[in-house]
């Protein structure tokens, strides 16, 4: 409500109502949009209960999802942890859609609701709308409709082909989902809404064209080709790193509905791909935005000291980074790193030191922190963000050090610490750590023996001598063999061509 006087408190105490949410949303927008220049999606704020939050957890935060036992497992796990008090629930869940869905819990106090709206409704929402990875890969307008379609399609398949068969198919698809993304944009992905229509039309078209006579037409003799190998690979588009895509398109024995299920899992997973690449930046952006907005609200006298302290308490918990030797340590906290880096960039823009001028001459002292940050949020992902903007000051604050653990050595070795010689090394190592292409094993489909026994050959490019985990790989390969319908082999070799391991699987219960 713009009629509110500047110095009037937005609320007092912990209780909130819908009117208050509206006022808070506008007050945050005043700061977020007018002062910081953010450009978020319109928000749709949904108030939910604890139980509904647990439900949302189980389906990766999405408001609707197809049915599968693994979501039930996830639900059971979270519920048990929550009931015993091991794990608190998130204050919010935000969904990259247009309008941006923000779930807030009814148990939150008024201060927490303000924090959540600033964090999700302005921070995340701005990031989703502007970051290039999201722009390139996700279709925020269509995702909810597509999920609706996926859910209905899979339910229909269950009715028609039986729950067990569909479940088996989904198990196989889920096992491969980390290797079911296109990492490089080829042609622009069709938007998800037309995706639904496409499926319908293709099926109808197939039914119309079907003519059994074609089966009886004798095939002409094929001319022998010298470059048979090359030709075959080119035809199949090999090598192919998107395993799900390859199987969907080329597995010889799958029924159309089974291909469609592979496609559904693949497309939904592709939607989440940007989130995996931008965890630090996304959380950093949202945390920085809520921190700024809350501070400004306090400065303008719109929240009182009590709620400001409540906010500080919660915020400190969120950006806590325990040291490596701490019992609570479980990796680098993306909130902490992202927030620290954003604050650091603000500092470099406004109060640079000599060191900063030397390291980041482009932005040091340009006195436009918000513009600089907006530009960074739009054009980088975690890997490039860290490699460009992790400043020595930040490395010192975190006390980052790099440890190399070589199997052949007796001890692990501290390769770099936060000193002159170490900054670049640490920055490079950390940036590599956030590079998804490096973190996920590089597995590709290399060849298919179409003329012979139709064996599918996959290759794992072994980096740093780290092979695949034996048990899981065997299980996943079994799924691949069942999907492919014939034998499958996975060869692990490093760049010098030394074979580090081989796994094979034969179909036990092929899908057909």
């Amino acid at each position: 409500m713009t009629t509110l006087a500047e110095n009037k408190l937005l609320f007092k105490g912990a209780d909130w109502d819908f009117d208050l949410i509206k006022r808070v949303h506008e007050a945050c927008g005043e700061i977020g949009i007018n002062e910081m220049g953010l450009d978020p999606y319109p928000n749709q704020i949904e108030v939910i209960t604890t139980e509904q939050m647990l439900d949302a957890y189980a389906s990766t935060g999405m408001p609707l999802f197809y049915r599968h036992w693994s979501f039930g497992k996830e639900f059971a796990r979270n519920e048990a942890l929550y009931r015993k008090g091991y794990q608190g629930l998130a204050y919010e869940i935000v969904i990259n859609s247009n309008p941006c869905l923000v779930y807030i819990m009814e148990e939150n106090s008024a201060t927490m609701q303000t924090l959540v709206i600033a964090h999700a409704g302005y921070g995340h929402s701005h990031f989703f709308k502007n970051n290039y990875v999201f722009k390139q890969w996700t279709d925020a307008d269509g995702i909810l409709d597509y999920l609706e379609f996926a859910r209905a399609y899979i339910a229909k398949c269950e009715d028609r082909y039986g729950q067990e068969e569909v479940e088996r198919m989904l198990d196989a698809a889920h096992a491969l989902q980390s290797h079911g993304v296109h990492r490089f944009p080829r042609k622009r992905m069709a938007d998800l809404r037309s995706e639904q229509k496409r499926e319908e039309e293709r099926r109808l078209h197939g039914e119309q064209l079907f003519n059994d006579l074609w089966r009886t037409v004798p095939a002409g003799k094929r001319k022998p080709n010298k470059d048979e190998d090359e030709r075959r690979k080119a035809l199949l588009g090999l090598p192919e790193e998107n395993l799900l895509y390859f199987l969907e398109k080329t597995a010889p024995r799958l029924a159309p509905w089974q291909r469609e299920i592979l496609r559904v899992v693949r497309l939904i997973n592709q939607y989440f791909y940007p989130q995996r690449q931008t965890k630090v930046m996304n959380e950093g952006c949202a945390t920085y935005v809520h921190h700024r907005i809350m501070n400004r609200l306090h400065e303008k006298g719109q929240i009182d000291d009590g709620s400001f302290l409540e906010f500080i308490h919660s915020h400190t918990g969120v950006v806590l980074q325990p040291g490596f030797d701490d019992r609570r340590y479980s990796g680098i906290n993306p909130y902490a790193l992202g927030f620290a880096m954003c604050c650091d960039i603000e500092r470099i823009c406004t109060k640079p030191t000599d060191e900063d001028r030397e390291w980041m001459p482009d932005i040091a002292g340009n006195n436009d922190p918000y513009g600089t940050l907006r530009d960074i949020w739009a054009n980088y992902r975690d890997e490039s963000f860290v490699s460009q903007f992790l400043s020595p000051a930040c490395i010192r604050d975190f006390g980052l050090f790099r440890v190399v653990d070589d199997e052949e050595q007796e001890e692990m070795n501290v390769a770099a610490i936060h000193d002159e010689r170490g900054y670049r090394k640490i920055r490079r190592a950390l940036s590599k750590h956030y590079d998804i292409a490096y973190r996920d094993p590089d597995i590709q489909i290399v060849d298919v023996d179409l003329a012979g026994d139709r064996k599918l050959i996959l290759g794992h490019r072994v980096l740093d001598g780290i092979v695949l985990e034996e048990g899981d790989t065997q299980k996943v390969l079994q799924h691949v063999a069942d999907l492919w319908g014939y034998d499958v082999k996975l060869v692990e070799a490093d760049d010098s061509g030394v074979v580090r391991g081989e796994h094979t699987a034969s179909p036990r219960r092929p899908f057909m």
Partner: protein
Amino acid sequence: MHIIDRRLNPGGKSFANRQRFLRRARAQVRKAVREASGTRSIKDAGKGGEISIPTGGVHEPHLHRSRHGGMRDYVLPGNKKYIEGDGIPRPEQGGGQGSQASDSGEGEDEFRFALTDEEYLDLYLEDLELPDLAKRQIAGAKAVQWRQAGFSTSGPPSRISVPRTLRYSMSRRIALKRPKAEEIAALREEIEKLEREGGQFDALQALRLDLEQRLARSKRIPYIDPVDVRYRRLESNPKPIAKAVMFCLMDVSGSMNEHMKDLAKRFYSLLYLFLNRRYEHVDVVFIRHTHEASEVDEQTFFYSRETGGTVVSTALFKMAEIVRDRYPVDQWNIYAAQASDGDNTSSDNAVVLGQLKDVILPICQYYAYVEVGMDDEDDHPGAGEPSTNLWRAYRRVPVDAPFAMRKVRHRRDIYPVFRELFARRPEGVSAEGA
């Protein structure tokens, strides 16, 4: 911006997924439930609760790198003392070193979650079956089932059947030749036309008369007449209800100590839970006996002490009497469970056997005798069967009678013994009913 209040939306979105998960992990969950039941207190026997199952069966594999070997590179926060070139001894396996450790989900080998009461009991009592569930009685007026039964000419307005009513209305209209609306409209048009054209007075007159007649007729024959109206009729059917009564018989003489009573109580509780799930209505009758038997309430049954001799037959006579008074055999499924330490006055054995064979077993669906003993007693190998008075007497019960006897010495035996007694048997092998 919109605010939407979703709090009142129906919950339980994850219910279907949860069921799928339980079905998937059924074998492991069942095992876990059986194991958990050994450590539970009697009050919680039927409650849900947390269980843990090995992750194996519900593991979701994915392709990822091994956590051992090779050349690894970590960036860690919180350096306090290290300088470049320092060596760090490798932590013990599973020491949590390394920033890649957390996302593989490998570390946990157990999956913990909570079951609801309903789910727990289902699994707990799965595969168990009550022998001879035959007698289903038509119980009192309360239990009525309503079902659709055709149509009637009277009823409340809310139950009007529109299709049926219109069907009757149409056939009546056709039969009585009610003029159709379009015929009247056409006639009117024609009259109008003639009026405009003028002349042809006779023809006009005839048409007007025709119209008048038709209008009068359609007024006499209404579109929907009360005789057309039909109502969807409901019929009430008495609903058969299976009722069961469970007799708990226990020796409370001095020789029964607290441990034995506790064992008996556990057995009764299980039986009660089980009956309760199979029957809509279960009565429990407690009969305790020393040298004389009396019907008591639960509290007295388990906790008050009595002194006296031990004459088991008194309890059986008492039971027969109660059945005669309150539980007509043709209306009730009768179950009995007897717990005793096996003592009986020697002269009474023949009476007990006679009463059991001739009176009790013929009216019972099932009669279970549980002989409770001390923890340490007879535990050496080759102890064989107990040889108490009562046990020897019951040995002479015919094999085909719905009768079973077991010896229980320890808490952990209760559930296995119970399962053994009520395990689902293949057709034909089950104990014959009375």
